[in-house]
């Protein structure tokens, strides 16, 4: 009885967190219409540099992640890629992608992208059944329903809320303060959290995350070697690539709407 009420309390606290962050999004939301197109500055005078106030934390974390990759992730992924042929690994990647439908659906909804949100539901229905629990993607291949990836970090940016400084997370990789909030919010949408005790859902989530990371790495074996070959400062290259990619994704989200 006691633990039951505790469970409810924790669950409602989570929902409160989610609801209050949503409320924050809506109340601070400024219309996204006034997205001014970037006036082109002469290239040589372009002097923009990325501030990095948390570099004292980020740099050791970056080193940690590289070491983790070197000692654990890459060797494991390399062994795994010998056992599992590429089509299988691609199927596993699609399976994990299919499972994460709720944050994609919810964030498309938060951005009032109703068609995209509905598309995600339809994709989940088709791929979970015809696509054999998500290992295949007939929704795209047969029905032309493409995935509309979305997350809470993008919702924050979508409503022009500053996403805060760059943050390198251990295990998870490049992020920002806002994207980390998004990661937590998207994580809170995992239905498993509300059905089983926390220790089970945490264990499952960690295991899932680890398998996913190994699977992803096995499909991108030369990624870091290649990046390092063309980089003068790998930390700076990863930081900028992450921030440019996120900024571009939001620009795309605005453009497809209007």
């Amino acid at each position, binding site marked *: 009885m006691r633990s039951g009420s505790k469970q409810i309390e924790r669950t409602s606290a989570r929902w409160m967190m989610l609801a209050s962050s949503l409320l924050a999004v809506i109340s601070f939301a400024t219309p996204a219409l006034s997205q001014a197109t970037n006036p*082109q500055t002469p*290239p040589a005078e372009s002097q923009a540099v*990325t501030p990095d106030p948390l570099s004292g934390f980020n740099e050791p974390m970056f080193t940690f992640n590289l070491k983790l990759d070197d000692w654990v992730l890459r060797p494991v992924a390399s062994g795994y890629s010998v056992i599992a042929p590429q089509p299988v690994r691609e199927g596993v990647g699609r399976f994990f992608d299919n499972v994460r439908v709720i944050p994609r659906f919810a964030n498309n909804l938060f951005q009032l992208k109703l068609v995209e949100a509905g598309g995600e539901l339809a994709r989940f229905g088709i791929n979970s059944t015809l696509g054999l629990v998500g290992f295949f993607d007939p929704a795209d291949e047969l029905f032309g329903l493409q995935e509309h990836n979305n997350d809470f970090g993008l919702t924050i940016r979508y409503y022009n809320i500053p996403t805060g400084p760059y943050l390198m997370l251990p295990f998870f990789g490049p992020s920002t303060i806002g994207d980390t909030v998004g990661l937590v919010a998207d994580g809170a949408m995992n239905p498993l959290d509300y059905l089983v005790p926390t220790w089970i859902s945490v264990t499952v989530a960690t295991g899932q995350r680890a398998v996913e990371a190994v699977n992803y790495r096995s499909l991108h074996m030369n990624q870091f070697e290649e990046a390092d070959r063309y*980089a003068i400062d790998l930390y*700076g290259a990863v930081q*900028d690539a992450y921030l440019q990619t996120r900024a*571009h994704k939001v620009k795309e989200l605005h453009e497809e709407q209007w």
Partner: protein
Amino acid sequence: MKQVKYTITRTSIQRLLRHRALAMLTLTAALVLSLAPSRFLAPAWADDPMSVVQTTVNRALSVLRDNQTPLAQRQDKLRQIVSATFDFTEMAKSALGYHWKQITAAQQQEFTTAFVAFIEDSYLSKINDYRGQQVAFLTARNDGPQYAQVNTNIIEPNGQDPIHVNYLLLQKDTTWKIYDVTVDAISIIANYRNQFNRVMNNKGYDTLISDLKSKQAALAARLANH
């Protein structure tokens, strides 16, 4: 009373609509007229950004595909093609950002030479990575009078998602030169600017130039080994 109110609202809406239609018409006309000189009346002989990119990429592709000619000759050819249409000085200057003005003229020269060699060798490495990719030329867009962007897709032979490669061009005198390339929306020059800015702030120019030279040497050695 109600009837009157209704009429007023109705006529004012109609008037508004008429005004709007007129305004839209004027706006469209003005827009068409202002765009006409650059879009439709450009002399046929002038190089436009799209044909500059098309010529460069197609010539580069023919070198990449030609596996009969010795590698050293193909590298030389590629180097010529690239240096004819890439504005390397502009790229070097832009990649250094505000630090450019803080170093001496001799250092600017030294840095430009090292950076050009590095970028060229990065580009030449693509010879070894070439697996029969095709290039689709999508759109060309003018960004103001002197700037343009040409969008292309690199089509992978195994049906993977295409890589979006956009070329940013700058018109100098009458010729268009490429000053930046974006790969899946990541500006290469902006990416190097972030890296160089960190090295300049944390360690200074001497480290930057020696790192740049040693990376370039590693790339050159890898090229020679293949």
